[in-house]
C-alpha cells in the first residue's frame, strides 16, 4: 500500500510539475490575475472603503460575504466540536 501510494504520489508530482510550466513565473508582474481585477482593487479600495490596507478592504468590503462565511465556519466548527466533545451541559 505504502509503495503504491509513494509511486502514485511521485507520478502525480512529475505530471503536475510538467503541467505547471504554463504557470507564470514566480513574481511575474504581468499575469492575468494581476492585470484584471487585482489592479482595480488597488485603485478603488481607498476611495470605496477608506482603508489603506487593501486586504482589509477586500475582506470587509468587496468580499465581505466570504468573511461572513468564514465566521459561519468558525461558528460551525465551534458547535461541531461542542457537539462531539461535550457531554452534558446546556448545548
Amino acid at each position, binding site marked *: *500500500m*505504502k509503495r503504491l*501510494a*509513494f509511486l502514485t*504520489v*511521485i507520478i*502525480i*508530482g512529475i505530471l*503536475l*510539475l*510538467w503541467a*505547471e*510550466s504554463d*504557470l*507564470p*513565473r*514566480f*513574481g*511575474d*508582474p504581468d*499575469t492575468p*490575475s*494581476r492585470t484584471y*481585477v*487585482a489592479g482595480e*482593487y*488597488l485603485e478603488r*479600495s*481607498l476611495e470605496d472603503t477608506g482603508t*489603506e*490596507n*487593501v*486586504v482589509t*478592504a*477586500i*475582506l470587509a468590503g468587496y*468580499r465581505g460575504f*466570504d*468573511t461572513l*462565511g*468564514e465566521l459561519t*465556519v*468558525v461558528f*460551525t*466548527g465551534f458547535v*461541531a*466540536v461542542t457537539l*462531539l*466533545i461535550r457531554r452534558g451541559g446546556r448545548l
Partner: protein
Amino acid sequence: MIESLIESLLLRYNYVMVVVLMLIGIYAIIAKSNLIKKIIGLNIFQTAILLFYISMADVVGGTAPIIEEGATDLVYVNPLPHTLMLTAIVVGVCTTAVGLALTVRIYENYGTIHEDEIPGVEA
C-alpha cells in the same frame, strides 16, 4: 528539453514547493494509519495550497498591498489571494478542530487512534 524544463521549474520554484508539500501531505494521509498523523498530513496539504495562492500573488519588487498615498511608483502585490487565504486558514483550523475532536471520540470508543486497529468498520 530537460534543460528547458529544469530552467522553467527554477523560475517557478514556488510551485515546485507547492507540489512537493502537497504530495507529502497526501502521502501522509495515505501511508499513516495514525489518525492524528493524517490530520497533520492534511494540514501540510492545506498549507501547501495557501502557499500556492500567496506565491502567485507576489510580484518581483512588489510591496505589501497597503496603499501609501502619493507613492505612485510602488508595485503592490495582488491583495485578493491574501484575502482568500485568510478565510482558508480559518477554515483549515476549523477542519482540524473537528477532525481532532473526532479522533478524541474515536479514542474514547475504540481505545486506539490507529485506523487499522479499529474493528468492524468497513466502508
